[in-house]
């Protein structure tokens, strides 16, 4: 009840304030919190603000939150640029929240995987999905390091495994991978649901989407192993926590983090410039070292030390698997329904 009225109130407020800001040279950018926000605020925005005399206001939230904000502001758009994961980005584009990208030479330098269909959104970073585990606790218990996605089914991890839920890209990738390893695929998802329900489910302590909560579960030793992304794992390991991140032998799975100029509103030219700026080799290198995003611009150069823990270069990016997003996106609604009924109960 309460959240319903709050959202309505928020949309009313957004509707009221949208017009007053239209004339300002202020760019509203929505994107993930955590290390991405830190890096952007501390190392990226200043250069852009100096170059274009624009002030950037950053609105932090996870992909689905931002998508909800885009829906709430429809008709009186305030956010100018949205940075969201590939799955929700597909949804944003099909809901008409993104406008076409203007042609620019920088787009020719990108890896193919970064060029999303439709020309309305583009990836600005690649994250590998794999397994993160508490190496100290594995050592204490004399457990071998995890090597396969099927390790998620190992009963020794009873109530010690954390997986983000299906509405989160990590959860979706886990479901599809479990389907594939049990004889199914994107088009035959049943084996995935069966495996998640019968074999993985009993191990799962909680389906947790929040990176903050995930970190807390590791630090309090309630979680020992989890499905997570290379960038998040790097941020946790950088704090000195004894976590290890590994790509299972069946392969890590790529998540492309997307960016798009928001449709409607005042169509600020800075939105397009900002996206081109984010894709430039220098900023790509900063995002790699600061936030752990694998660069999508082929011209980005990283030292060997900077390459550790993130997908870098054509060869490594090619090693990451991708899923059939067309099938996954088309079925997402049905899978989601099934997931909350069969898996999350």
């Amino acid at each position, binding site marked *: *009840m309460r*959240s319903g009225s709050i959202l*309505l109130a928020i949309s009313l407020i957004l509707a009221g304030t949208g017009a007053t800001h239209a004339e300002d040279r202020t760019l509203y950018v929505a994107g993930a919190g955590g290390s991405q926000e830190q890096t952007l605020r501390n190392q990226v925005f200043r250069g852009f603000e100096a170059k274009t005399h624009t002030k950037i206001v950053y609105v932090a939230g996870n992909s689905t*939150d931002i998508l909800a904000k885009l*829906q709430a502001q429809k008709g009186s758009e305030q956010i100018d640029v949205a940075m969201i994961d590939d799955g929700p980005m597909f*949804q944003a584009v099909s809901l008409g929240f993104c406008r076409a990208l203007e042609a620019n030479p920088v787009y020719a330098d990108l890896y193919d995987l970064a060029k999303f269909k439709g020309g309305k959104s583009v990836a600005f970073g690649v994250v590998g999905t794999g397994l993160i585990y508490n190496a100290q606790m594995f050592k204490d218990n004399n457990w071998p390091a995890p090597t396969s996605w099927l390790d998620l089914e190992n009963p020794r991890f009873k109530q010690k495994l954390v997986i983000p839920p299906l509405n989160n890209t990590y959860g979706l990738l886990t479901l599809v991978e479990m389907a594939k390893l049990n004889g199914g695929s994107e088009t035959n998802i049943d084996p995935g649901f069966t495996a998640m329900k019968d074999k993985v489910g009993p191990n799962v*302590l909680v389906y947790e989407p929040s990176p903050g909560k995930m970190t807390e579960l590791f630090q*309090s*030793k*309630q979680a020992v192993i989890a499905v997570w992304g290379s960038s998040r794992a790097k941020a946790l390991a950088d704090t000195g926590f004894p976590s290890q991140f590994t790509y299972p032998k069946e392969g890590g799975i790529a998540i492309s983090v997307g960016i798009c100029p928001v449709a409607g509103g005042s169509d600020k030219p800075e939105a397009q410039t900002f996206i081109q700026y984010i894709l430039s080799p220098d900023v790509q290198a900063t995002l790699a070292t600061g936030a752990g995003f694998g660069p999508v611009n082929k011209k980005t150069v990283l030292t060997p030390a900077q390459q550790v823990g993130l997908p870098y270069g054509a060869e490594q990016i090619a090693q990451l698997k991708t899923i059939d997003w067309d099938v996954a996106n088309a079925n997402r609604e049905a899978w989601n329904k099934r997931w909350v009924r069969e898996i999350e109960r």
Partner: protein
Amino acid sequence: MLRPLLLTAPAAALFVLFLLVPLGGTAVLSLHGFGMYSGIDSSYSAANYRDLLGDDYFYGVFARTLRIGLLTTVITMLIGAPEAYILSRMRPPWRGIFLLVALGPLLISVVSRTLGWAVLFGSTGLINQMLLGAGLVDQPIAFMYTETGVVIALSHVLVPFMVISVSASLQRLDPQLARASASLGAGAFTTLRRVILPHILPGILSGSIIVFALASSAFATPEIIGGRRLKVVATLTYDEFLNTLNWPLGAAAAVILFLTIAAVIVVCNRLVERRYDRMRG
């Protein structure tokens, strides 16, 4: 004739603007359709209500919500009513001090208080460490992500509402009544049961209404302690709004919850009123 209307106008405007308009908006929203890739459409139908009411999953969530609300109400009743009575028998400096202690949970923001419980509840948390250390259990008890944990955390914060409500009716109680009862030969327990309890029953009932309404519409506690697998109607609504983006379905769930709680409150309120009438007359 005009003056009362004018005097109540600001408050009325506030209610209309911040209560009735959003509620009406939610009700209208709940009638629209939705597609994951087409968004909210402007059609009107009862499809969302049909979906929810024809779905076992929703009944499970709904039953859990009411179960948590009911259990929390019973527990706060068992703790809060005696607590209020003991407080009323205390001497001045202590009564104030302990009343403040009893209201303590309300002084902390809901999120930090709930996260505090989450830290205590974890399998490696303080409570389980103590129980394991004392040899009372040999496996950590699952508080996190269980209804037990949600009910404990909700009872903790809602007990003050029961205490306040029962205290109010204790203040209306003539202290001479207890003495009169004693002079007629009733023991302390009989006085409590036959004289005090009937008088504070309306207080307990109205406290229960508040606690039940707050517990069954609570969001932060079930979200943090319960997690995604322990959905209640409020977290289901949140999920539809913010994750699936299916606002109409979320609005429909919110409307159903609202109507249910309103119905419970109206019925209980009748009981309270009748009780008071009987006491007066």
